[in-house]
């Protein structure tokens, strides 16, 4: 019994820091509508800076002062990031800011290793809270008791801030209605900066307060960010109290999950999140309107299929790509194969994200279904490569179709998070159902057969399938059905009133995107000769999102350009420098700042300007 109570108290202590991180994330999203992927990075940097300060400053005052100073310093860094980066791109398409915060995350990940080294750092205990206290026959760290008390206190302070100060009232107004906030005479610029700094302060403080509990390391960022997202979504976007309740829930699930449900401990919070969203599509204490966003990827520049010249250029590009194995070695051919596979993945996400306007944070789910589909077909059913490549996309189709049915009531960030939950659940099945999937050891020996056994042969096969998938996606994009998809995205009410059911359109988009992603996953399995749970993991989802955003959400060729640029660059950087994340992050930030419409978006912009200049008197491009 007493052991359970101790476990419960540990959960409560974890809830406090989770709450601080999640409430910061929630506040930032509520006001700026930025999905701040870098929030975990700020948490981690907060811990590192606090470690350094508490090592240097002496005495009790030094420790506490160091922690607070660290949070304030990181908050200043956050404000700087907001002013230098985010402020310039609030007008960019939805989720584009996510790309910027992803760039910041990459930069931070390498910088902390550069500055503090790769090893874990153990910090000083908090003066006055070094011992343990006997409670119910168990020794409870005094620091945990401090954190347990801190949670409600932080909630109370935030409540006071939002209800009793002018800043807080403005923040709440801006969360609910931007126009109204503008009418109140708010200086939006500085309000956004202030809110961002506040959110980062909370994250960094949470990181600093972890010092006495755990060692500081460079994996802290990703570990906390996923939990924080789950907390925000369960609690309801923009609701601080919701974040508090959800933090308690998630922390207890983490504390007890491993004891009660060892088989599903890794995904229990995602299962709970899915269950909560099934009952309350806007989280426990969220409100529907906060989730509403203006049309996601709507471009004011009508999409056009390629004209004669464009098609010729594409054909030339394909021919040039096909010639690659004649002029280069196996290494480059294999790298190019991987790039093409990710281009297929990006194009499939583009159908969902750009054409249908549905954001997904878990596209890895369908990629992994394709990969495991191959493993199942080859190892389970004894099929050959051809049959496996034909079967795997069906696995993606069925998975996506079932998921979209289950998720029919959700939209916006909630739906995006549910796709992440789906991917994580699949990941845990792959990881823990060892008899079938081999667990962590994966499924090995999936080698391509016949002509594709050579790198060049497999490259051509991949190129052929890439042309097929990309071609089909473009035919769909410009077909009547493509117009239906975009119509439902632009204006759901209008679409419904002309007989185009937005729900059906969304379901179809998932089915198409799932099938395409599974093709990519199937090829990936044969390229690597094996399948691991990694194919279902978050980095694959993030990469696919980054590729689409980088290329330009509002364009039709963006995912292709984005995939080639991002994948080729990351493969190349990885071979060139040990600080490849830093370099990649800086490149992403540069692209974000220089081309807020993405790589292809900026080309379109130039072309429009050029066309307009050539025909003075005709304001509109054709």
């Amino acid at each position, binding site marked *: 019994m007493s052991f359970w109570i101790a476990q419960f108290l540990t959960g409560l202590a974890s809830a406090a820091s989770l709450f601080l991180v999640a409430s910061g994330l929630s506040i930032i999203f509520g006001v700026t509508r930025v999905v701040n992927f870098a929030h975990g990075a700020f948490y981690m940097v907060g811990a590192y800076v606090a470690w350094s300060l508490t090592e240097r400053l002496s005495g009790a005052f030094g420790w506490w002062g160091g922690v607070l100073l660290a949070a304030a310093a990181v908050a200043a860094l956050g404000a700087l990031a907001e002013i230098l980066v985010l402020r310039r791109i609030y007008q960019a398409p939805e989720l584009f800011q996510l790309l910027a915060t992803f760039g910041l995350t990459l930069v931070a990940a390498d910088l902390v290793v550069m500055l503090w080294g790769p090893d874990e750092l153990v910090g000083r205990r908090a003066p006055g809270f070094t011992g343990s206290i006997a409670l119910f026959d168990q020794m409870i760290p005094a620091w945990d008791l401090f954190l347990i008390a801190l949670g409600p206190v932080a909630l109370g302070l935030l409540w006071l801030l939002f209800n009793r100060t002018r800043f807080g009232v403005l923040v709440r107004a801006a969360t609910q209605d931007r126009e109204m906030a503008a009418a109140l005479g708010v200086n939006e610029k500085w309000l956004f900066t202030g809110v961002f700094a506040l959110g980062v302060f909370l994250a960094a403080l949470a990181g600093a307060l972890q010092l006495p509990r755990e060692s500081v390391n460079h994996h802290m960022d990703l570990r906390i960010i996923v939990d924080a997202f789950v907390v925000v979504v369960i609690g309801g976007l923009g609701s601080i109290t919701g974040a508090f309740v959800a933090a308690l829930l998630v922390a207890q699930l983490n504390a007890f999950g491993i004891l009660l449900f060892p088989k599903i401990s890794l995904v229990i919070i995602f299962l709970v999140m899915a269950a909560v969203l099934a009952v309350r599509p806007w989280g426990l204490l969220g409100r529907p309107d906060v989730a509403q966003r203006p*049309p996601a990827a*709507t*471009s*004011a*520049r*009508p*999409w056009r*299929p390629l004209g004669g010249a464009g098609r010729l250029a594409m054909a030339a590009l394909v021919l040039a790509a096909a010639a690659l194995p004649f002029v280069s070695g196996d290494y480059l051919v294999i790298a190019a194969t991987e790039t093409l596979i990710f281009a297929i993945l990006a194009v499939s996400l583009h159908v969902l994200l750009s054409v249908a306007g549905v954001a997904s944070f878990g596209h890895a789910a369908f990629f992994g279904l394709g990969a495991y589909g191959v493993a199942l077909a080859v190892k389970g059913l004894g099929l050959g490569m051809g049959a496996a490549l034909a079967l795997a996309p069906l696995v993606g189709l069925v998975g996506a179709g079932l998921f979209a049915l289950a998720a029919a009531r959700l939209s916006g960030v909630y739906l995006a998070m549910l796709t992440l939950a789906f991917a994580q659940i699949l990941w845990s099945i792959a990881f823990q159902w060892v008899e079938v999937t081999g667990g962590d050891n994966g499924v090995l020996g999936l080698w391509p057969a016949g002509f594709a056994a050579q790198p060049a042969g497999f490259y051509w096969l991949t190129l052929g399938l890439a042309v097929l998938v990309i071609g089909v996606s473009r*035919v*769909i994009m*410009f*077909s*009547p*059905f*493509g*117009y*239906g998809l*975009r*119509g439902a*995205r*632009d*204006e759901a*009410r*209008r*679409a*419904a*009133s*002309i*007989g*185009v*059911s937005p729900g059906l359109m969304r379901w179809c988009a998932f089915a198409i995107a799932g099938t395409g992603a599974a093709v990519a996953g199937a090829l990936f399995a044969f390229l690597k000769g094996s399948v691991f749970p990694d194919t279902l993991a978050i980095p694959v989802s993030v990469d696919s999102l980054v590729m689409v955003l980088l290329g330009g959400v509002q364009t039709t060729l963006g995912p292709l350009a984005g995939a080639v640029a991002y994948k080729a660059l990351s493969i190349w950087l990885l071979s060139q420098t040990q600080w490849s994340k830093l370099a990649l992050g800086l490149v992403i930030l540069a692209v974000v700042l220089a081309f807020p419409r993405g790589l292809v978006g900026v080309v379109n912009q130039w072309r429009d300007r050029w066309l307009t200049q050539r025909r003075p008197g005709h304001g*509109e491009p*054709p």
Partner: protein
Amino acid sequence: MTAAMNAPPLLAATGLAKAWGGVRAVDDVSFSVAAGEIVALIGPNGAGKSTCFNLINGQLRPDAGRVLLSGRDITGAGPARAFRAGVGRTFQIAATFASMTVRENVQTALAAARGQIMRPWGAGRNIARDDAMRLLALAGMAGMTERPAAGLAYGDVKRLELAIALAGAPRLLLMDEPTAGMAPADRAALMRIAVAVARAQNIGVLFTEHDMDAVFAHADRILVLDRGRLIASGAPAEVRDSPAVRAAYLGDGVLFAATADDRRQ
């Protein structure tokens, strides 16, 4: 109106009710619209007019009551089904597809109307081109068919909405404040177009409007809604002279004052 008198009317709404929390937005409202008939639904802001429209085209499911279209029950069937049954509508806050050109907007509606919207091949922008051009010409937009819809002036958006609504060859057309936000000259023109098309194609029209000149100029019949309840209905002259309406609503001249205000915009 020469059809058999005992055939069911085009639209029959009976006992419609919808409440938001405690607010009864629509409260036991019954009325009908015949084919080819032009009916105005008037009432002050918040009277429940838009909610009524949403109940009829299935956007909302009523708490009570039924919606019959030519005798067929379409209550709460959803907007897509209502559309297939022959209900077209425009919105109070105009809604068009911003990522498409004006023509593509209408073509999308035409593709949907003709059951081609699920076809994942062929060029969407070649679908029913001529019909789209004809509808746009009808709505007075012949000169701007290739413009991006996102860049249209609000009055043009309203006209585009009308063209989209007509693309489904509706039997019943619902227009929620079709001319709000337009320049005065354009308003009269838009109403004239809508009414002419309706008369020519025997479409029943139910519209809301704050511009009383438009109401009295075009409506065959007027329904007056006040705080969710239907307080009067009849020919324009009847409604104007009805003591009940005057007492409850027109009496203090609010309606006509509102008209004057609208025109000043």
